[in-house]
């Protein structure tokens, strides 16, 4: 007794605990552990007050510090059973915070919850309902459905409201409850208390959004409520419901358009306004009046300058993008301005809209605008802009690009923009264009030479993919180089190439060899054609002579013979080996030998490399005796830890730089390494500096780093520079013509396409599969609705329109509609029996007494033909429910594209054919 007194006297209260916790600056975890230890001890106490306080403390620690409280679940139940309200509520709070479906003590709570739900004290009932909404599992839901059902009819609106809201959870966990309670839920829409109506509509809204078709019959009710609703929250929910229903039923759209427009005109609450707009964009796209009003309202709101409204406006416009391009065209100025907004989410939205409107006719102007924005944007958004340009233009084999010369300059501009990190993709597209579009190769080579010559680009690791591609392209098509091979050699051998990653450097060296070969061969031709003239020329331009080239290469490549990278070293040796015959220009014989060798090489290099389809491997017939499926485990020890690099891309260089970087953990050499240096390379640097003056800083002081790349938005910006000032805000936005994308025209150069390329991975939206529980809910609700309907139940007034519906009249007193009963008649014309393809079927183990259902996508709808798919009948006990039946009705009303679910008949003797659609029941008021 005395010890209990002491305990309660010295127990730390919640306030003490919180204060103590706030004082702990560093040793919080130690304090926490101590506090938890205390709580553990106090929980064992017999004194209810100590126990309650301990539980409350634990709840706080769980919420604020993430302490585990699963061990205290039994204590929570104990406190829940206490009679004093102030204790009880602590228990309930702990339970709703910490219990979950699988908590083992949940079985103990059933009776307790039953008692508290039926309590006279409405606050106790309210506690129980709240807790129920959090901890409900299938068993609890099954046991407590009657209680919730009773509470929905309670005389106190406070309880009715809560019971109605919790019904949704019950439905989800225990779909059979729908048969019991759905009618009452619908009745609640006529409740005297507006909050109860609101609760009922909330629940129905939730259900409708999951499976709208089942709720079409309730449309008149919703319409009536919307008509008289003065509560914005209720209106929002109702408008949302119509947003789900109208796409299914065009006549409903016609009916609702008028009231919705009125609502939009008079409403002040922006939330409701935007909900209306959303509904219009979802289901009323064909109602020009409504759409026009939306666009008008959107523009009004976006002009207010509130970022939230701007964001929502852009979102709504995006929904109209496909069906009403004019809406975007009208608001394009606002959209383009949004690119400048500081908020990344607004910028992104605007970018999506702009990219969505790009077509062949406006791609040049749009890309030009975006490139301008990219120069001033921050790094991450800049890259998003660039990647969306690359993606959009590269889409479907450069569908929207008609002027490839322009596009190539865009690509090189993208590489040059300071924040750009898209070297890999730029490189890939450059190569792709160079290979596929022959007529534009000269332009590509010119652009690539520009990229290679710019020393600033070499210092940016992200761009090495582009440089690699550029080097390869120039090497392949050196004859097209604008300033001749010697310039290219100089660019390829500039001192900063040491910053390149080895794998890129190796490509550079190979290019040097190719360029040298081409250079030497052309030199030879000239030499033998008119020797005298050439000698004179040689005197004039020492720089261009063969000897100068040899010296240049030797000077720069010799250090690479000691490179740590094997590939670089080998290629450097190769190049130098080819040069040896030319070392002494006076030794005519050796030079002759050298020329012969180079001629042979040049024949090899001159073969054109074409694109290779990614599927090419598949077309190679498999040798008969190749055992490709053999287990190769035995080879493990032989292969050892060798990393075999497989290039799966279309071409060698398509492997992105990033992969290389990750592979080799590459760090670019530091500046000290570069400039700290032997005199020879300093001299080289000096020479190079002299040669490419315009790329260097003007002063003679030691160069710390290179100035940013020379951004010459040459072709892309000529149009705007001729307009005047280059400020992006002054850009003539009207020059954008936004129309629907058109087909490519004839003047577009030929793009080499490989066959079987069309099945490239496109954008496919994954079909989301609904959860098991959801399916059960829809089934049950569909049944509940159709049962009400077909029985002509007088109590279902809430459901029934005054006039009744056409199909319900037709259906008579049968369980299913006549149409479907006809279809189930055994005297069908044709029965197809299919085996297999049972994806998505599952016997439900949790609720064995619930209907089994299957769903499948019905693809073929031929009128007056019935298909029945039977997988197996009673083959194994666990799968006896797997007969799948698909009825394709006469396409009398509309296309059925959605996945339909079929409840299986529960009566064993009856033929298991089910109602496939319930959409036949369209309220008369719509007709």
């Amino acid at each position, binding site marked *: 007794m005395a010890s209990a007194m002491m305990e309660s006297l010295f127990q730390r209260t919640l306030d003490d605990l919180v204060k103590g916790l706030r004082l702990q600056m560093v040793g919080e975890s130690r304090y926490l552990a101590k506090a938890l230890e205390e709580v553990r001890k106090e929980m064992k106490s017999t004194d209810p007050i100590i126990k309650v306080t301990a539980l409350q403390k634990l709840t706080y620690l769980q919420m604020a510090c993430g302490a585990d409280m699963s061990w205290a679940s039994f204590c929570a139940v104990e406190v829940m059973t206490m009679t004093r309200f102030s204790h009880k509520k602590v228990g309930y709070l702990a339970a709703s915070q910490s219990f979950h479906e699988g908590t083992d003590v949940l079985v103990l709570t059933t009776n307790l919850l039953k008692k508290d739900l039926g309590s006279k004290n409405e606050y106790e009932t309210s506690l129980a309902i709240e807790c129920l909404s959090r901890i409900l599992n299938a068993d609890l839901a099954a046991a407590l459905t009657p209680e919730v059902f009773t509470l929905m009819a309670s005389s106190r609106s406070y309880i009715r409201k809560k019971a109605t809201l919790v019904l949704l959870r019950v439905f989800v966990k225990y779909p059979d409850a729908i048969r019991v309670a759905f009618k009452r839920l619908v009745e609640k829409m006529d409740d005297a208390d507006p909050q109860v109506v609101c609760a009922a509509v909330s629940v129905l809204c939730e259900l409708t959004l999951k499976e709208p078709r089942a709720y079409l019959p309730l449309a008149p009710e919703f319409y009536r409520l919307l008509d008289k609703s003065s509560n914005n929250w209720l209106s929002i929910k109702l408008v949302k419901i119509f947003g789900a229903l109208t796409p299914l039923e065009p006549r409903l759209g016609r009916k609702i358009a008028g009231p919705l427009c009125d609502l939009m005109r008079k409403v002040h609450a922006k939330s409701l306004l*935007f909900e209306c707009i959303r509904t219009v964009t979802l289901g009323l796209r064909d109602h020009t009046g409504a759409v026009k009003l939306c666009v008008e309202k959107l523009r009004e709101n976006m002009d207010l300058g509130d970022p939230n409204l701007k964001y929502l406006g852009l979102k709504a416009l995006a929904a109209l993008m496909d069906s009403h391009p004019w809406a975007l065209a009208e608001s394009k100025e606002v959209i383009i301005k949004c690119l400048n907004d500081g908020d990344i989410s607004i910028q992104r939205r605007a970018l999506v809209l702009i990219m969505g409107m790009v077509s062949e006719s406006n791609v040049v102007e749009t890309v030009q605008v975006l490139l301008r924005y990219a120069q001033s944007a921050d790094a991450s958004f800049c890259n998003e802009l660039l990647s969306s340009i690359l993606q959009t233009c590269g889409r479907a084999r450069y569908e929207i690009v008609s002027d490839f010369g322009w596009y190539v300059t865009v690509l090189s501009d993208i590489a040059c923009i300071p924040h750009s990190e898209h070297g890999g993709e730029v490189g890939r597209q450059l190569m792709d264009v160079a290979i596929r579009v022959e007529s534009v190769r000269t332009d590509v080579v010119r652009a690539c030479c520009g990229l290679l010559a710019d020393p600033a680009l070499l210092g940016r690791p992200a761009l090495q993919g582009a440089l690699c591609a550029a080097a390869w392209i120039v090497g392949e098509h050196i004859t097209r180089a604008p300033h001749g091979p010697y310039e290219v050699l100089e660019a390829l051998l500039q001192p900063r190439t040491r910053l390149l990653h080895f794998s890129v450097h190796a490509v550079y060296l190979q290019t040097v060899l190719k360029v040298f070969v081409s250079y030497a061969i052309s030199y030879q031709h000239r030499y033998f054609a008119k020797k005298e003239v050439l000698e004179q020329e040689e005197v004039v331009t020492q720089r261009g002579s063969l000897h100068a080239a040899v010296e240049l290469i030797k000077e720069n490549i010799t250090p690479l013979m000691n490179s740590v990278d094997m590939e670089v070293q080998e290629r450097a040796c190769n190049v130098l080996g080819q040069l040896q015959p030319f070392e002494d220009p006076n030794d005519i014989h050796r030079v002759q030998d050298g020329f012969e060798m180079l001629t042979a090489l040049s024949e090899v290099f001159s073969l054109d490399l074409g694109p290779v389809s990614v599927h090419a491997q598949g077309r190679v017939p498999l040798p008969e005796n190749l055992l490709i499926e053999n287990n190769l485990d035995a080879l493990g020890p032989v292969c050892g830890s060798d990393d075999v690099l497989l290039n799966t891309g279309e071409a060698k260089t398509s492997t992105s730089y990033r992969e290389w970087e990750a592979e080799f953990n590459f760090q670019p050499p530091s500046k000290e390494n570069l400039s700290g240096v032997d005199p020879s390379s300093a001299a080289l640097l000096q020479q190079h500096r002299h040669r490419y003056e315009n790329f260097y800083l003007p002063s003679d002081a030691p160069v710390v780093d290179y100035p940013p790349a020379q951004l010459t938005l040459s072709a892309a910006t000529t149009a705007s520079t001729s307009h005047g000032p280059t400020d992006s805000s002054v850009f003539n936005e009207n020059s954008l013509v936004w129309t629907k994308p058109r087909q490519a025209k004839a003047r577009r150069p030929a793009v080499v396409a490989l066959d079987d390329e069309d099945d490239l991975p496109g954008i496919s939206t994954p079909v989301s599969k609904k959860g098991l529980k959801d399916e059960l809910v829809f089934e049950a609700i569909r049944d509940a609705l159709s049962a009400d309907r077909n029985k002509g139940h007088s109590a279902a007034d809430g459901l029934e329109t005054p006039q009744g519906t056409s199909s319900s009249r037709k259906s008579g007193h049968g369980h299913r509609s006549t149409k479907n009963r006809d279809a189930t008649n055994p005297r069908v014309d044709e029965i197809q029996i299919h085996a297999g393809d049972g994806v998505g079927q599952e*016997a439900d183990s949790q609720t064995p007494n619930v209907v089994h259902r299957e769903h499948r996508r019905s693809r073929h709808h031929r009128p007056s033909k019935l298909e029945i798919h039977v997988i197996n009948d009673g083959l194994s006990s666990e799968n006896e429910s797997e007969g799948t039946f698909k009825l394709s009705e006469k396409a009398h009303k509309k296309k059925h594209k959605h996945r339909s679910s079929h409840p299986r008949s529960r009566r064993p003797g009856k033929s298991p054919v089910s109602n496939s659609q319930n959409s036949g029941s369209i309220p008369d008021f719509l007709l």
Partner: protein
Amino acid sequence: MKPLYRSNQVFIHPSNGSFTGSALLKLLSKLAHHRSCPRAQSLASAQLAVEAHRQTPHHSPVTMIRFILLQNRQGKTRLAKYYIPLEDSEKHKLEYEVHRLVVNRDPKFTNFVEFRTHKVIYRRYAGLFFSLCVDITDNELAYLESIHLFVEILDHFFSNVCELDLVFNFHKVYLILDEFILAGELQETSKKAIIERMGELEKQD
């Protein structure tokens, strides 16, 4: 090497012991089409459904509120209520991520942030961030207004609410929240009604 699964007719060994989920699915779908062996078919299709179910996301889109968080600028959670079942570790990760997401946003930015597959609607009051997570298609402005309504109720109830009120009376805040939102749905839109309810709740012993 374990057998993949066993039936009367089918007995499969994965040859190299490393079947991934998708490989398993492929195999099973092949089996399901294997006409000569009906038993294999039925077993495979049941297994297939389970696999497919496992691979789909657990929460299908609904309009309810997923969770509500009150955090201060340092990222301390002052209140957290989840309306969907989540593991404890997941909750902490989520709180951390939401805080990271909202704490550095400029007041001139939108109050909506995309968060995983959902979106967070947040509002800052002094040093406290009130964040609501809802479905991506849900009505942002309505929830923004409801956050404000909730804060007004708190302000009225604690008369000039400050962070400490919420810390020391966290259980009361939960009670208010439960009067405001139930099962992830807004249940009461009248400030007056909730204040009156709270008054009566306080009177209960």
